[in-house]
Each structure stands twice: as structure tokens, then as C-alpha cells.
């Protein structure tokens, strides 16, 4: 972690700003905004699209595309294993990948709170740049607004993204059918617990770091090999695996069965969930995706996925069934069954 931070800073040393915090003027659209952008922001994302310096980007995207948007308000903005900047890139890149699209271009909008320290802002910018490089996407347009102190939480980011559909992809809810296998690429609940471990009033010692990462390379490799046999993809971020599977069951009108003992989870994360009274199937993920694939290729898919860096802990966790349409039923470790529902709100810690 520390090493990574140092190398990033060497690569992109912070320019000498003549201001050390963000002020309201930086969002005015006037001279201060220009000063902020020209003091390094434009340079760090340097690319021909952005260099047009117009109100929008000119793009040439032949064929079918996918388009998505997401806002990021994570607190704290720096957490074990990442920060809000790379999260904002990876989140949108992953949403495109889940559509079966090759992520290409991103917009980037900041809502900054007056008083945000420039070192923090710069560190976030550098991590956005690094995340874009890793995912192979460009920031092609953007915006910066500043709100008064107390009206925001340091920094909010919105990113939208466009990607070209992978020629072999056909990912639609209506392609999910009984018999399909449900596969996870990696350990669940890691991101949510990493964030919880540094929340105010709840710090606990652990080595758990967020799993935020761009999944597009892995997903594209799978699409190259399995194409239309992949019926559906979704990344279970907020609300965790349980909420995402419940949504798929409801919206797709299918029944889903999963087996608790097959859910991959890191021991430390599982332990933290026990202590905090949280059910890991409802805890947020960032580097995890659910594949629903034709049963005929499921084993081969798993083998391929396990051979990839982001799929080392992959597992088949369940299947699509004819019984109980629109519901997810989980077989517990002990062999009992229960329905997995969406939560009414956030998962709240229990009293005892």
C-alpha cells in the first residue's frame, strides 16, 4: 500500500498550487476554475478528446453501445485498499462490462466541498488516472462544482461511461433459463467490511482491504471464449449478492437456489461479519461479479475463470430453477432452507 502510494506520487508529483484547499471560487466557472484545471487537472488526464476543451466530447463509436452512470459518495473517501477516485472509475467500467460492453469513454464530474485539501484531491486525481490506465478508458469530458462547507462530504463523484458491445455478447434477463449455473468470481463482502473497519466509531484492526478493481479484462476474456453461452452478468455492489440475486429473480421471473457453503469468503471477513452482526450476503462488493451461464459450459467456465487473476476464488454457488419463481432460496450450511429477500433498508447492527 505505502509503496504503491509513493510510486504514484513519483509518477505524478503534485504541482505547486498557490492554494492549499478548495474554495467556492474553484467551482465558479471563472478564473479560479480555470486555474485549478490548468494547474494540472487537464494534464493528468491528457488525451485528444479532452484536449478539444469544448463543452462536450466528439466520439466515433460504430455499432451497438452500452451507456451507464453512477455516483459515488463513499465515506471515508480514503479506505483500506483504495479511495473514492478509483472506485468511481471501476464502478462505471464494471457496469459497462456487465452489459457485455468494452468500456471506452468516461465522463467525470466532481462535487467538491469547500475546504477539501488539495493533497487529498490530487491523490484522488492520480488514482483516477491510474484506474483509467488499468481499465483502458479515457476521461473525455467533465465538470467541477463546489458547495459550501457542511453541504457535502469532502467529495462526491459522478462518472458516466460508454462502451462498445462485445460482438459475441448477448446478456439479457430474458436469456436466463432453468438449469443455468450461477458463478461468483471471488470472495464476497470484502469491500463493505473494509469500509466498515475504518468508519467513525467502529475502527477495528484488520488486514482487510477493499476489492475495488476493474473487471472488464476478465469479463472480455470470458466473452471471447464463451460468448452467447453467458446469459447474464451483474456486479453485486450495494446490497451484496443477496440483493442482486433477488433483483434478478424478480425482474427475470426465475427461481434461484444458492448454497451457503459454496459462497467464497475470506476468513477474516467472515469473522468480522459475525462480530458486527452482519450477513455477508448483504454486504457490498466492488471486485465481484455474478455470471449466469448455460449449464453445459459451467465447469469449463469455472476452470477458465479460476485460471485468471480475478477469478482465483471462483465458485459455482447455485443454479436457476423452475420452482419458486421470483424467489431466491438459500440452503444453509446446516442444510436448512430460507428465502433470501431484499433488505428494507441498510443492514443495521443488532443489539445483542
Amino acid at each position: 500500500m505505502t509503496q504503491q502510494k509513493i510510486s504514484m506520487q513519483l509518477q505524478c508529483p503534485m504541482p505547486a498550487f498557490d492554494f492549499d484547499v478548495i474554495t467556492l471560487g474553484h467551482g465558479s466557472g471563472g478564473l479560479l476554475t480555470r486555474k485549478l484545471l490548468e494547474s494540472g487537472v487537464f494534464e493528468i488526464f491528457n488525451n485528444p478528446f479532452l484536449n478539444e476543451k469544448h463543452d462536450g466530447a466528439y466520439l466515433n463509436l460504430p455499432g451497438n453501445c452500452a451507456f451507464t452512470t453512477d455516483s459515488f459518495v463513499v465515506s471515508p473517501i480514503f479506505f483500506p485498499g483504495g479511495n473514492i477516485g478509483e472506485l468511481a472509475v471501476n464502478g462505471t467500467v464494471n457496469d459497462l462490462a456487465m452489459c457485455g460492453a468494452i468500456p471506452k469513454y468516461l465522463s467525470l464530474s466532481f462535487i467538491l466541498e469547500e475546504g477539501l485539501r488539495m493533497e487529498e484531491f490530487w491523490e484522488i486525481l492520480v488514482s483516477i488516472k491510474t484506474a483509467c490506465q488499468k481499465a483502458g478508458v479515457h476521461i473525455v469530458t467533465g465538470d467541477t462544482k463546489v458547495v459550501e462547507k457542511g453541504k457535502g462530504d469532502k467529495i462526491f463523484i459522478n462518472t458516466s461511461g460508454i462502451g462498445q458491445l462485445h460482438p459475441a455478447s448477448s446478456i439479457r434477463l430474458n436469456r436466463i433459463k432453468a438449469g443455468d449455473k450461477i458463478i461468483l468470481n471471488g470472495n464476497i463482502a470484502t469491500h463493505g467490511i473494509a469500509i466498515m473497519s475504518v468508519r467513525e466509531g467502529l475502527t477495528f484492526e484488520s488486514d482487510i482491504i477493499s476489492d475495488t478493481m476493474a473487471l472488464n479484462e476478465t469479463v472480455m476474456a470470458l466473452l471471447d471464449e464463451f460468448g452467447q453461452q453467458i446469459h447474464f452478468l451483474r456486479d453485486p455492489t450495494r446490497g451484496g449478492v443477496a440483493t442482486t440475486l433477488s433483483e434478478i429473480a424478480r425482474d427475470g421471473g426465475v427461481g434461484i437456489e444458492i448454497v451457503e457453503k459454496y459462497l467464497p469468503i475470506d476468513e477474516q471477513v467472515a469473522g468480522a461479519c459475525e462480530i458486527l452482526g452482519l450477513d455477508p450476503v448483504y454486504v457490498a462488493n466492488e471486485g465481484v461479479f455474478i455470471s449466469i451461464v448455460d449449464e453445459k459450459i459451467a465447469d469449463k467456465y469455472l476452470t477458465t475463470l479460476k485460471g485468471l487473476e480475478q477469478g482465483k476464488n471462483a465458485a459455482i454457488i447455485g443454479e436457476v430453477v423452475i420452482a419458486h419463481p421470483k424467489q431466491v432460496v438459500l440452503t444453509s450450511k446446516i442444510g436448512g432452507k430460507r428465502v433470501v429477500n431484499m433488505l428494507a433498508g441498510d443492514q443495521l447492527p443488532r443489539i445483542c
Partner: protein
Amino acid sequence: MKYLSEFRDPELAGQYLNEIKSIVRKPWTIMEVCGGQTHSLVKNGLLIMLPDEIRMVHGPGCPVCVTPLNLIDKAIFLAEERNLILCSFGDMLRVPGSKKSLLQSKAKGADVRIMYSPLDAVKLAKENPDKEVVFFAVGFETTAPANALSVIQAEQQGVNNYSILTSHVLVPPAMEAVLNDEQNVIQAFLAAGHVCTIMGISEYYPIVEKYKVPIVVTGFEPLDLLQGILMAVRQLENGEYKLENQYSRVVKAEGNAAAIKLLRKVFEVEDREWRGIGTIPASGFELQKNYRRYDANLKFDIQIEKAIESKECMAGQVLKGLMRPHECPQFGKKCTPSSPLGAPMVSSEGACAAYYHFSQALETTPA
């Protein structure tokens, strides 16, 4: 981690289930007292694995569920009208008061914070000397020692801007209230393991004797619960009634002496109102005279109207085991976890919320 998997072993669970099936002859109604046990029974899908003869009734041991409406209204009043920081365990936030919940208050700008420990609230008070900090001290004998300790710490550190709004309830009087009910159907209890960890088991001998009812002090993992049920069924089938301790790896007969000493120092026993059940004599903790300056009830001028419980909510019947959650006419219709009429539909330990999931499984999963 091994600790967790050992008590969730499917093979051993199968053995316990077989043993229960082999000894059970007659139908029995057993109450698991604690909401944590209810949660575990449902989460692990144990209820549908038990033989039909055994009916589990979910007891009043859900602190969120039995906290009176009036106290939630008080907490909301303090948070909104007295410009202070109200701290609470997470579970309490969604429970509806007479007009709204603490979560809704928070959304409207009240400073309501989720805490895992009252000691963090004392720390918060120390860090914000110009703000009053109130901890909503809810719970059974399990959470009471930490709340007592927070008062002692506040005193030792001279933190005068800290106080607690107590709603402490005690398990044994509630079990007696269930047994005293004319319509009582409960034939044996699984007593709450964690409560006994603090208080020991001696309080239960008189109940066993007076009511001739088997009580098994039981833990929370699937194997604990199955073993506890087996022990209770064995007693019932043999016509015995005695106090047994299934959870002996955690529960010592004498309890936790240091915690009990702390409780006696800070609290005194009082009559207390239980939501949905009514007032039970000598069933709660209130701060002792020496510590009354930490009582938010006395410290602040609280002006709230007497709230009347919704007549549509049958929580009282459910908490006493006289009605099963899905037998309530509002269950799953007007009352769901996202718009609960009463507290048992809110907490993950509440019987109604648990059944909300469970009954759906029953309808659709072939047995």
C-alpha cells in the same frame, strides 16, 4: 473461524435431528426466549427441519420489540427538540414510534448516531463538551453491564454532558409473565444463553419449581439450538422438569461476578412496561439514586403526549406466543419490514420479520 464451523456442522446437525425424531412421541410447544435464537433458527432454516411434533414459539427476548412506544417517542423528542446528540444501537433506529422512527428523525436533520458501544458515546461526549450526549440504553441483562460501565466512566472522567435513556428489561420476570397468562401454551423454555452468561442460572430454579416447567439454558449456533431442543424434548417426554445448561462452554452457574457487581452498583430493579405486553412487576433496571444525574428522563424536560398503540398490531399476542406472526391479519399485507406496524416486524430478531421470510419459503419450497 473453526469455532463457527464446528457449531454449524451439517452431519452433527443431522444426528441431533434424528435423535429428536426418535424420542418425540407427543406434540410439544417450546419457547426460545431470545430474539438471537429466533434469528438463528430462521437464518439457518432449522424450523422446517424439526419434526412436526415440535412447535417453536418465539419469545419476548427481542429488546427492540419490547421497548415501549413512549420511550421511542421520548428518544425522538430529545433528538429533535433538545438539540443534542442521540446515540443508539443500530436496530432501534427503524422501530416506529407513535409518529415516526429515529431513522426518519435523522433524515430530517436530528443528530442521531449508531453506536456499537455506550463507551463510544461517553467518548463522544468528552469530545463535544458543549453538546449533550444521550445514549438510548436498550436491552436485556446482556447490554446492561456496558451501559452501567458507561455511567461509571462518565462519573470517573467528570463527563457531565452524558446521560442515558434507560429501557432495560429482565428475562426471568418476562418468562413468568408468559407462564402466568391464562392462555399460556408454553411447555418448556430454551433460556437465553447470553443473559445467563452475565446473570448465572440461579434465577431459573424457582421458575422450574413453581411452574414445573423444563428450562434449558441454550446457545445460538445451530448445534446449540438443536441440542437445547433435544434436551427439552427429552425432559418433556420423560415427564421431568429441571434446569439444564446446554451452553456450559460459555455460561457459568454463578454468571459474571464483576458484571453483576456493576449492575447492582448502578441500577435498581423496577416495574417496567413492555411493549405489547404491559407492565411486568420488577422486570426492569432503573438508575440508582446516586446516579440519577445521568438519567436523561430526569435531566431533560421531556414533553410528549401519551401515545396509543395501533390496534391493528398484534405484537403482544405474538410476543407471548399466543399467536403466530403469519396468523395476524395484517401480516405481509399492511405490515411488512419496509412499513412495519409494530416492532417485531422491524428487528432481524423480531418474530414477525423472521416469519416474513420464513413463511414465503414455506409456500414455495417443497418440504
